[in-house]
């Protein structure tokens, strides 16, 4: 399934897509596969994530708060290697969700953007989220992703100007990742009004689905975000549940969030 099809199916069910993040190889490669499967399975009542962000652990994750930083450090300490990413992606694809990779640019630069795109596609990956690659610097990635039919998911932020929203929207495919607040990843008490405003501004420039991330940590947040966005992205809160409660906790949390995105009353704002 492609990202486009996932968002279309969700729209037909009049709900937002649930997008979950965990780092690959956290705490080990095999355990991370179990956690990803749990995140997709849900709690037995409600299915979990429609789309899974497989994070590539990186030594210098400047967009991440302490939760994801320490999870990535742990994966690296346990010997995670980039080539193992593709095994994890294959496992996620087999579990029924659509996998996308989230990675800082340097490991991909090092691997070779074309080789990375080729191997990601072969593993069943649908696209790549690039937190530190803006369209102006993405020339090589535009080519590689075209060549290997992968979606390019760029970020927009509350500080993005109208010009930059338009530029980013036209360079991206699959969906746009709206960073709900100015800041790094990490669970927050509330989802700021700036998310709603950013989604509204971004819609003026694109037909692409818009996913909202940064700070979503409860079913209530998920329901709130689902009322105005096409995708609800949950990262750090999944990491915390995985650390504390393992697979069972991740299954339960995925089910809760799954109900969250199904109970929202969507504002049909073009999405």
């Amino acid at each position, binding site marked *: 399934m492609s990202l486009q099809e996932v968002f279309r199916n969700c729209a037909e069910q009049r709900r937002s897509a649930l997008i979950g993040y965990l780092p690959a190889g956290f705490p080990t490669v095999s355990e991370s596969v179990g956690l990803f499967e749990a995140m997709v399975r849900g709690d037995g009542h409600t299915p979990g994530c429609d789309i899974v962000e497989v994070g590539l652990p*990186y*030594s*210098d*994750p*400047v*967009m991440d*708060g*302490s939760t994801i*930083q*320490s999870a990535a*450090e742990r994966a*690296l300490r346990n010997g995670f*290697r*980039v080539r193992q990413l593709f095994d994890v992606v294959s496992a996620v694809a087999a579990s029924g969700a659509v996998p996308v990779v989230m990675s800082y*640019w*340097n*490991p*991909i*630069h*090092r*691997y070779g953007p074309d080789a990375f795109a080729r191997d990601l596609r072969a593993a069943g990956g649908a696209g790549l989220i690039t*937190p*530190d*690659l*803006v369209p*102006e*610097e993405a020339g090589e990635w535009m080519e590689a992703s075209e060549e290997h039919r992968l979606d390019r998911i*760029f*970020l*927009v*932020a*509350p*500080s*993005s*100007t109208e010009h*930059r929203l338009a530029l*980013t929207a036209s360079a991206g495919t699959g969906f746009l990742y709206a*960073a709900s607040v*100015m*800041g*790094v990843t990490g669970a927050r008490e509330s989802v700021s009004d700036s998310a709603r405003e950013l989604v509204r501004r971004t819609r003026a420039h694109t037909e692409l689905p818009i996913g909202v991330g940064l700070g979503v940590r409860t079913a209530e947040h998920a329901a709130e975000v689902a009322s105005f966005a096409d995708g609800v992205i949950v990262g750090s809160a999944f990491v915390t549940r995985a650390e504390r409660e393992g697979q069972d906790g991740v299954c339960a949390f995925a089910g809760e969030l799954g109900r969250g995105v199904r109970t929202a009353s969507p504002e049909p704002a073009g999405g």
Partner: protein
Amino acid sequence: MTARDLGGAADPDELGSPDSGSHDPDEGGHFGPYGGRFMPEALIAAQDELAAEYDKARRDPEFVAELDRLLRDYAGRPSPLTEAERFSAHAGGARVLLKREDLNHTGSHKINNVLGQALLVKRMGKRRVIAETGAGQHGVATATACALLDLDCVIYMGATDTRRQALNVARMRLLGAEVRPVSTGSATLKDAINEALRDWVTNVADTHYLLGTAAGAHPFPLLVRNLHRVIGTEARQQVLERTGGLPDAVLACVGGGSNAIGIFHGFIDDPGVRLIGAEAGGHGLDSGEHGAALTSGSPGTLHGARSYLLQDEDGQIAEAYSISAGLDYPGVGPEHAWLADSGRAEYRAVTDEEAMEAFRLLSRTEGIIPAVESAHALAAALRVGTELGPEAVLVVNVSGRGDKDMDTAAHYFGLVPEAGITGEDQQ
């Protein structure tokens, strides 16, 4: 110094495109294939704002005059060019001239950059400044400028470095700055930069990130280089007056590379002048424990720019090592990457041992205790002088003074009982 040194309106060449001879990067901040902006989207607006404000400021005679005044009356510029006769005897007899950035207020070249950026912060109407620091030199300089210009100041410093440089932590706190130790990753300079970037992305509306070296995302490499160009402009004029000609080589140490790019730019259009950067060779390139991104690294992206860096085969950033905290960084400014590829500048690795020998030699022959960072450039000068012989004239940038390094030196040479006298020859 004049408006020309700041890229002010007095000299149209300095404002032009890369092909007009200004050596500026392209509009996206690229020096050849290096530089650019590998940054989170959330920070692009702030980078754009800074680039636009700097572009206006560099043409504004009032801004230029205010910075000139601070550099002269507050920082103590111009810094002298000192003839190092006794040191020269050890450099194959080549004539060695020292550019004395160690005599600036706060003890290093860092003050040139922080005064310029702090004035820009005032222009942008921001109140809060954050910065990273390794050895503490840039942190102290930033805290100083913030005290002078009444700005709130937060300094991020690797926890390892706060222990190595405890006195500088005290200096920053005395100057009114808040020092936040960073214990993630390797707990050194690169992690302090990561943490400063996280702060910036959260507080960018009222906060300026006062980056301390000519690296990072555009416009920092251009901005910091231009603010340090005064070193090279002065040095060129001084060496012409002193010797009646241009030097054979100009040498400087390179961590991020700000003092080097500043002095190099004074001579960059003089093709007969060799530009030589000394990187941290640590325990030797073969040991794997060093900070020599140009001599031993490979291209990649770190902290916002494409440049050479130390990384493993997966693109994970490697930990750098150097006896000097200021060179203990796995990356380097993008313009140096371009100068290395194009061959205009050359880069050599200098080991801890060579640097410490030069550190002691300059202290004993000239009565000048240099920063351990600068001692890398001095060690390179000893080698280059020996290669070129007594006819050669070398200008070496003494980028900072060694007061901050006394603890390192005391341990290294066994100078005090607490540090354990090693029985090494103290003459």
